[in-house]
């Protein structure tokens, strides 16, 4: 019997109630606190802050808790909050050269001013499940050393001394930095907007694209010139004061890829750069971003555009996981009106085919 699709409101309310129950899980287990998420799931928090484009660990932790640990859902929640916040100004570019460095490695130099500093990395850990972590024991405190005064110049600066690497981005003097979240997208894009899109782009998508460039789809001969993670100061120019005010420190991961470049009509042979900068500690994302950034500069550098990673419209239109997840998942919504139209068409076309076949058979019989 036909049952009208009534009661949508009650169904939704009940679904959300069940969701809240499942989110809480077994009441005998203590509820996880935001502090625990911030402290112990900090790389999840970092990813949500980075792709949510909002630097607030507590809110990111809340979003993660609300999303039951679904990181993309948490990013979405954070974005929807961020978009309602008023803009009171744009910070000055952060100076990553003055970073309070926690980790800094270069794959292009054995040693360099400031040294190599491994920091809190998974690198060189053996990926063996550690049963000790299931217990409650506390780890030993980290080893420390007195803070040195030694400067830690960026590798790009060292190479630039010889003129072997391109300068920092060459946008015109009067170029006003765009804001992806406040202006409609327009192709072709400038590199500033493209980097904004990549910075909030999905880690997995950029990882796969970056990987594709290493496997020959827009091969760009990259070296990890430098990766550094640490705290940088955020400064804001306050017009009334006439000088910049420090708002605070944020943790960022910066990656500078150094890429071979044969030279073109416009530029001599030199190393070019791909750039990645991400909130928090996220080396994988920063490296993938740098690979994609370099690949996307193909047009600017006069290279052939042959691979997906070089295709600006393709990459930028599809790298946002909030957009992607929404549109993929909207297929869950009812489409029965359109499906009815298609049903009607397929039935009609089948009828026509059957009629034609019957007519053909009749003709043959008549001919015999």
């Amino acid at each position, binding site marked *: 019997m*036909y049952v009208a699709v009534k009661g949508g409101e009650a169904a939704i309310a009940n679904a959300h109630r069940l969701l809240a129950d499942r989110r809480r899980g077994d009441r005998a287990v203590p509820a996880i606190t935001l502090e625990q998420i911030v402290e112990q799931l900090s790389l999840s928090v970092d990813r949500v802050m980075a792709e949510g484009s909002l630097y607030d660990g*507590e809110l990111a932790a809340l979003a993660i808790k609300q999303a039951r640990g679904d990181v993309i859902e948490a990013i*979405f929640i954070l974005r929807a909050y961020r978009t*309602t916040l008023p803009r009171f100004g744009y910070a000055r570019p952060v100076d990553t050269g003055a970073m309070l460095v926690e980790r800094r490695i270069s794959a292009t130099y054995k040693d360099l001013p400031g040294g190599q500093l491994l920091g809190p990395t998974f690198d060189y850990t053996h990926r063996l499940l550690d049963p000790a972590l299931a217990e409650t024991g506390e780890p030993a405190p980290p080893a420390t050393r007195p803070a040195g005064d030694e400067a830690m110049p960026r590798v790009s600066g060292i190479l630039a001394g010889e003129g072997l690497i391109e300068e920092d981005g060459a946008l015109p003097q009067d170029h006003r930095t765009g804001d992806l979240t406040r202006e409609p997208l327009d192709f072709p894009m400038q590199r500033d907007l493209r980097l904004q899109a990549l910075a909030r782009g999905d880690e997995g998508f950029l990882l796969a694209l970056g990987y594709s460039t290493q496997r020959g789809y827009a091969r760009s001969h990259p070296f990890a010139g430098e990766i550094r993670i640490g705290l940088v100061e955020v400064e804001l120019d306050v017009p009334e004061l006439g000088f910049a005010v420090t708002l605070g420190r944020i943790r960022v991961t910066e990656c500078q890829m150094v890429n071979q470049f044969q030279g073109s009509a416009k530029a001599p042979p030199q190393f070019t750069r791909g750039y990645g900068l991400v909130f928090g500690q996220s080396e994988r994302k920063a490296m993938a971003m740098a690979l994609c950034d370099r690949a996307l500069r193909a047009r600017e550098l006069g290279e052939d555009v042959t691979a997906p990673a070089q295709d600006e*419209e393709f990459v930028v239109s599809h790298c946002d996981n*909030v957009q992607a997840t929404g549109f993929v998942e909207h297929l869950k919504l*009812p489409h029965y*009106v359109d499906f009815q*139209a*298609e049903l009607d068409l397929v039935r009609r076309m089948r009828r026509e085919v059957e009629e034609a076949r019957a007519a053909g058979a009749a003709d043959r019989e008549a001919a015999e």
Partner: protein
Amino acid sequence: MSATANLATYNFAYLDEQTKRMIRRAILKAIAVPGYQVPFASREMPMPYGWGTGGVQVTAAVIGPDDVLKVIDQGADDTTNAVSIRAFFQKVARVAVTTRTAEATIIQTRHRIPEAPLAAGQVLVYQVPIPEPLRFLEPRETETRKMHALEEYGLMHVKLYEDIARHGHIATTYAYPVKVEGRYVMDPSPTPKFDNPKMHMSPALQLFGAGREKRIYAVPPFTRVESLDFEDHPFEIQRFDAPCALCGSTGVYLDEVILDDRGGRMFVCSDTDHCESRRAAEPAAQTPAETLR
């Protein structure tokens, strides 16, 4: 907790006034150039992209405290996403809502145009997933914008012609392309082509919002909207063999409802308000649900 204490405070209709102003400007431009897709700085909404964020932003930008809102999805007021969007505006704008087409000042819709003719002063807001009618012929935005600018729609006509050559008729049943006021080819959103004639010379203002794709376009009242066709293959809408099994309406769009696992099915109005109004007006017209076949 830093910002969480203030989380509950949002502006009327959710969007801040600066954003509304930006969207209204885009809407005004869209009305001035019927059928042209105006880029706008679409915001992240608290519902997912692809679930009506464009329509919600347009509605949020035009709605006032005195408006009466109707939200439909697939023609029905009680489909889950329509319920969710209606509840959103009840919450953030505290406006009156209705399911009656005639009572609404703003109707937000996904996939249908109501059966009852719209009147002057009403605004129909469409949720649009892919605003570009040429997208499936040419995936690049840079190219399609050029094609619109040059009024270069040959590709679309070739596609329709190839349909006729292959099937004997045009094999597009929904999101059937239209030409607006003799200039821009426009995607009517994925409404069945059955609804296309309702857009033509409508006294209501028709606004289209595509959030993920960041485009707004419009058909002002009393604007020509012609479905693309050929002289020897004129545009036709779907026809249903049987009337609505609940209210007996003919000449309306019907949904097929499966009744059992033996091929039993019935056809009922997709527009639930239309169906209910007819049944309320003429209880005698109600026929018992009958299984076809």
